[in-house]
């Protein structure tokens, strides 16, 4: 075990994967000698050479197109998109190509080795182009996996699982926690399961569900609610696609209430998908409407970021409303 922040854990995961398998490559804008603008790829070029860790030209569609071809060839690319806000030029390559490669060829070819890393989310005074959470756009695309870690331990275990997974995987890293979240991380090569939610805390009155940086917000909100005697069950979804319906439904069977929170806007957000599925599964068990606590239906603001974000107070209020319904 070593104390690491999330960036160190991600760097450690990449180092672990590259040391174990020479087919693993890291590339993206400023990823080489500089180690990425957040330093997630620090020292990898020095250690593994320019052929396996390198800067690309500034062209997101090219980075992912290149990565698709490389993965089809049998390499294991880990492509970095500098900010999740800038993943959209690569949307076609991800949605039409990565996601459909195996299906369209009848599994003659696939890009299962592909992992795309991108820092996402607000809380860093990044304004509308350095704060977005685009997971819902990609969650509408069968063939992709979408993973979001909440702390350094999860980041290393889930990233290694994403790199080894046989499907193209988007790995969204909560950049607000890059340095803020510190914890013990095993030194060895380990993987955490994709497609499985984690029940962080058991409770009886209400299920509170989120992912990534929102888990820290949930933790504070739940502390407030529990001081008032409300027993909360807390779940980290971890994998957005395909998501773990069983774990969430089983929790709601028990608690009868569900609060879902994410930073992305409300309309078309992934909380809507969860709410629809859970009411279908758990209709007769529900004691109150499923609540969604999300960012507003606006572009991400700069100065009024705090007002925009679904913080612990908003989540706390939703928990209370749900219990008091």
């Amino acid at each position, binding site marked *: 075990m070593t104390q690491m922040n999330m960036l160190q854990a991600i760097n450690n995961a990449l180092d672990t994967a590259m040391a174990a398998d020479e087919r693993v490559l890291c590339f993206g804008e400023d990823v080489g000698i500089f180690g990425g603008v957040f330093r997630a790829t620090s020292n990898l070029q020095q250690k593994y050479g320019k052929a396996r860790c390198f800067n690309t030209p500034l062209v997101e569609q*090219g980075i992912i*197109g290149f990565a698709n071809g490389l993965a089809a060839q049998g390499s294991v690319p880990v492509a970095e998109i500098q900010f999740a806000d800038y993943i959209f030029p690569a949307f*076609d390559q991800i949605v039409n190509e990565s996601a459909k490669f195996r299906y369209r060829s009848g599994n003659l070819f696939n890009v299962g080795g592909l992992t795309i890393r991108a820092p996402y989310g607000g809380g860093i005074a990044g304004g509308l182009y350095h704060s977005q959470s685009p997971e819902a756009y990609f969650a509408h695309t069968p063939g992709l996996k979408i993973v979001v870690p909440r702390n350094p331990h999860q980041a290393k275990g889930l990233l290694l699982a994403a790199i080894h997974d046989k499907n193209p995987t988007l790995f969204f890293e909560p950049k607000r926690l890059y340095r803020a979240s510190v914890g013990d991380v095993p030194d060895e090569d380990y993987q955490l399961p994709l497609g499985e939610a984690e029940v962080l805390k058991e409770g009886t009155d209400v299920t509170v569900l989120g992912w990534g940086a929102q888990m820290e917000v949930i933790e504070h909100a739940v502390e407030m609610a529990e001081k008032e005697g409300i027993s909360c069950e807390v779940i980290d979804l971890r994998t957005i696609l395909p998501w773990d319906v069983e774990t969430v439904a089983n929790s709601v069977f028990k608690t009868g209430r569900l609060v879902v929170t994410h930073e992305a806007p409300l309309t078309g957000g992934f909380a809507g998908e969860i709410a629809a599925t859970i009411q279908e599964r758990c209709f007769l068990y529900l004691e109150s409407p499923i609540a969604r606590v999300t960012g507003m239906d606006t572009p991400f603001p700069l100065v009024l970021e705090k007002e925009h974000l679904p913080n612990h107070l908003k989540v706390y209020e939703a928990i209370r409303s749900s219990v008091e319904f």
Partner: protein
Amino acid sequence: MTTTKAKVAYSPVFTDGAEFRIPTFKLLKQDGSLYKGAKAPDISKEKALRIYRAMVTTRILDERMLAAQRQGRLSFYMQCTGEEAAVIGSTAALDDADMIMAQYREQGSLVYRGFTIDEFMNQLFGNELDYGKGRQMPVHYGSAELNYMTISSPLATQIPQATGYAYGQKLRGEGHCTITYFGEGAASEGDFHAALNMAAVHRVPVIFLCRNNGYAISTPAAEQFAADGVAPRAYGYKMDVIRVDGNDILAMHEATKAARSLAVEHNRPVLIEAMSYRLAAHSSSDDPSGYRSKDEEAVWREKDPILRMRLWLESKKWWTEDDEKKLQENMRREVLETMKRAQKRPPPALDTLVSDVYDEVPPALAEQFDKLKAHIRRHPDAYPKSAEHAKGTAKEGGLK
């Protein structure tokens, strides 16, 4: 810091690059003789006949399948007519282990590499033997065995993928390259520019082959770009480039052979612009009479690449009228017989609807599939192709 070493000028001097006119490489005249000063290429009789048979087979396949489409036997088709030399001449210059990442009009490459008429038909009719399991429109072929990446409909997406694939080949060090084909229309997409730039910067063994065939559906080349074709763009990326008469099989072969050696031996990506003409419609859904004249087409019919090669073969005494007759008859018969066989084959099994989305069927999708099968069991007459596959209890799942 910039690495551009420009000359200094003390008055504003603009340039539009018009002084760069790229020459066109040609070897073979339409009458089958070589241009004066052109060096006879080193192609064996055996190889020349393999190329020629592939060209004729492609032409016959295209004619028959367009007719089949018109008869309502298949939903869609795309012909390679007029561009056989550009496609097959270049493919023939590669090692069969080199990867081909094509656009959609390169069935000639597959024919040359030995894709059987059966394999074509299975894809065109989307039957149970289609490697793509009936998921894509006709002409979206793929073959892992023949190193031909399955076609994707979105235009130009394969171009940066070719750069990535070839980079992997370079790292593996087995001396192979990737060729990617596309039209002059696709060269307008951002993917094209991304691919060439990345290939040049990272010295990737990839050949970009632009089939400049004059039209992107109905849009003529003059409305596609203002410059002297696609080739000059390579200058901007500092990439080797050559323009070739795309109807000249010998020139296409020689140029691609030289390009392959630059790519594989020197890690230099190459752009080849093959100047040709799409004699047929863009696809069976297109009608060129709405945007170009018969006179224009007639000029290009005179430059038929297959006839040109046949005259060359005859001049070498490698091909006779009798050989031609036999090949034509045999191939037409084979295409017809194979088509009938393929049409009768059953469609892909129902579970191919949910397989290959992921490496394993996720639980939520398995549940959707069980619901679908239960629904089909309640309405078997409404799903005649799948009712048999939906038998069994919902619990079984039926997933492999």
